């Protein structure tokens, strides 16, 4: 069996290809002029440029964090280009027909044909190809409901008051090294605004794709759900194969006003590097949401890609009775490293949070769960439940759990459960004896392990997540 397994583990990244679309790219390097260039290129108002420059100056004073359980060669921030846009983008396409056919073909290869997505799922797509939003659909239907779903660049232009009010309100410019970098040079991203009492009529979805060589990608996403509103947002990623490490430092900010509910789902499948760990994306992401009274934020993530992942989607439970949830599957194979988890900051009374984290390690990879649950002095009656499960495939991988618990309120209740298990030879033998090939067996066992998380994903995403797991580790059993 082990030979077969070796072969399967070495299976090449199915989404690895490079699309030859001409790009307008800034030479590598980062200084104030670059920040000014980006801002000018996007015709941004003065206040936005100032905001970026503040962030840049703060970033220059900061040091890259090194506490995560990951190892990678130092990133040379001066060797990265900070702006790239597909050339054909000067004239923004109004519909899919106007989109560069090669771009569409790229999505076809990934098995996520836009047309199908659009029609079958009724999903509005804000597709980010490299750094500029290429096409936005279903805009009209959304605007009927009063929902704003556009690129952040467009929001800066059209809804400056909203952006001014909320940008940086959850993740300040100086929050951390990568957030500061993102604030200085963010290229584009999505902006969502759901007015008071509105239930967004469809799931909002963005597919990201890093395509330009040596281009760091700095997405900025801001979602604001006004009082009593409801929105479900889907983010999915995949990237072409390449040799040089690519830096990705995104920031996502969620604001859930009183009684609002935001569900944010991610399927992340960036190029993880080859079997020896060469290439692959560095994914250093800051995601955080703030919940006001009786509001709810639910993060669900399926992380299968990237060479190095550093990511902790968090909830600040500010308002009384607010709810935070984090459901995560992080899968690492070959030489991948992931340090991911969440932070639940309980400030308001009777706030509740649930954390279900599933880590799967195969090959020589290393996967860590790092989570913080903090009960502030005012968090009377607050509750947290955490469950951390690790599944090991083979005997050369690692799984680690770093739970941090800080309780400053005696009435708060915190529960933590953790398990570590292996895909056993006995399970594999049972499956084989019932006629299943090893690929199918592992994918089924792993999917079973992840079931508690997958059931939190929107239907269409759950299917895709299952497929991703299959591609990422088909049959890898030792």
């Amino acid at each position, binding site marked *: 069996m082990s030979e077969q397994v070796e072969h399967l583990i070495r299976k090449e990244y199915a989404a690895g290809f490079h699309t030859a679309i001409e790009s307008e790219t800034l030479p590598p390097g980062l200084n104030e002029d670059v920040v000014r260039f980006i801002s000018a290129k996007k015709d941004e108002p003065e206040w936005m440029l100032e905001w970026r420059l503040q962030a840049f100056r703060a970033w220059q004073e900061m040091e890259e964090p090194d506490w995560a359980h990951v190892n990678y060669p130092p990133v040379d921030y001066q060797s990265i280009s900070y702006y790239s846009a597909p050339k054909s983008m000067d004239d923004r396409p109004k519909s899919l027909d106007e989109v560069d056919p090669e771009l569409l073909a790229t999505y076809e290869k990934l098995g996520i044909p836009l047309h199908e997505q659009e029609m079958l799922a009724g999903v509005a797509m804000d597709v980010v190809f490299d750094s500029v939003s290429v096409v936005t659909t279903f805009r009209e239907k959304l605007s009927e409901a009063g929902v704003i779903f556009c690129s952040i660049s467009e929001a800066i232009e059209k809804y400056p008051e909203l952006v001014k009010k909320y940008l940086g309100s959850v993740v300040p410019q100086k929050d951390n090294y990568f957030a500061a970098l993102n604030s200085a040079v963010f290229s584009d991203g999505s902006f969502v605004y759901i007015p008071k009492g509105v239930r967004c009529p469809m799931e909002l979805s963005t597919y990201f794709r890093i395509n330009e060589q040596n281009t760091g990608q700095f997405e900025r996403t801001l979602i604001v759900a006004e009082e009593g509103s409801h929105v479900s947002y889907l983010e999915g990623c995949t990237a072409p194969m390449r040799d040089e490490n690519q830096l990705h430092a995104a920031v996502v900010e969620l604001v859930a006003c009183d009684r609002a509910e935001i569900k944010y789902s991610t399927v992340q499948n960036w190029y993880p590097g080859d079997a020896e760990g060469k290439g692959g994306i560095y994914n250093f992401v800051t995601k955080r949401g703030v919940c006001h009274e009786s509001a709810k934020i639910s993060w669900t993530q399926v992380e299968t890609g990237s060479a190095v992942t550093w990511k902790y989607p968090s909830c600040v439970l500010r308002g009384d009775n607010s709810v935070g949830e984090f459901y995560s599957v992080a899968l690492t194979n070959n030489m991948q490293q992931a340090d991911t988890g969440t932070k639940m900051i309980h400030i308001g009374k009777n706030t509740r949070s649930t954390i279900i984290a599933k880590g799967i390690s195969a090959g020589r990879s290393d996967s860590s769960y790092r989570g913080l649950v903090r009960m502030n002095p005012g968090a009377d009656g607050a509750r947290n439940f955490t469950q951390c499960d690790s599944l090991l495939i083979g005997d050369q991988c690692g799984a680690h759990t770093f739970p941090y618990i800080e309780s400053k309120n005696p009435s708060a209740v915190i529960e933590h459960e953790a398990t570590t298990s292996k895909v056993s030879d006995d399970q594999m033998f*049972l499956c084989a004896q019932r006629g299943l090939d090893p690929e199918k067996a592992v994918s*089924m066992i792993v*999917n079973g392990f992840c079931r508690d998380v997958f059931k939190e994903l929107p239907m269409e995403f759950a299917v895709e997540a299952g497929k991703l797991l299959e591609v990422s580790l088909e049959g890898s059993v030792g």
Partner: protein
Amino acid sequence: MLRIDNLHASVEDKQILKGLSLEVKPGEVHAIMGPNGAGKSTLGNVLSGRDGYEVGEGVVEFNGKNLLELEVEERAREGLFLAFQYPVEIPGVSNMEFLKVSVDAVRKHKGLPELSSVEFMKLARATSQKVKLDQAFLKRGVNEGFSGGEKKRNEILQMMLLEPSLCILDETDSGLDIDALQTVADGVNAMRNEDRSFIVVTHYQRLLDYIVPDYVHVLADGKIVKSGDKSLAKELEAKGYGWLEGGVA
């Protein structure tokens, strides 16, 4: 159906099977009895191709094919089924899903179309009734939190759905109370027909009151030392295994 000739097998360099020969014809039920450590479970594991068993000499022919050359899953698809002594749990994978993918894999091999989900669910529900396993168990994880008896019934459920041509029951009776034993035996008896064969591995004669074998073989020290009809089982119950082991030495 199955022809085993002079089979030698070892586990971690320890010789377990030392020249076992056995022929099973279609429709026959063979019971393999023997003392602990005789190699009874090894036989089932070697025939199904489990990792860790090294086959030395010997030939095993199954439906005209060289069984030893096939992968575990290929043997299963060819119609060889092993009911486990200790069925393992697969948490989170629903029994129904597991049964469906198994049946699909076997049907595909036979050139049959996949059953639709609806067809399959009907079939699975009806079959679970036959083995007196509540339908709720179809929705639960494979063997997850099942009692010993429920696990064994689940094995028989799988056997019925997969319709194998050769069923090997590895001490399926161990840990079963009389009611569960009866249910398991009823399942097996219902499946007996002129094309399907069974190898029933057991330590005790008790099971053979319910599943009446055509032949009884005594396995001791890695080979079959005595064969007979069902009356041999009774004799073994009365005399134990000692007289036979002494005889071979």
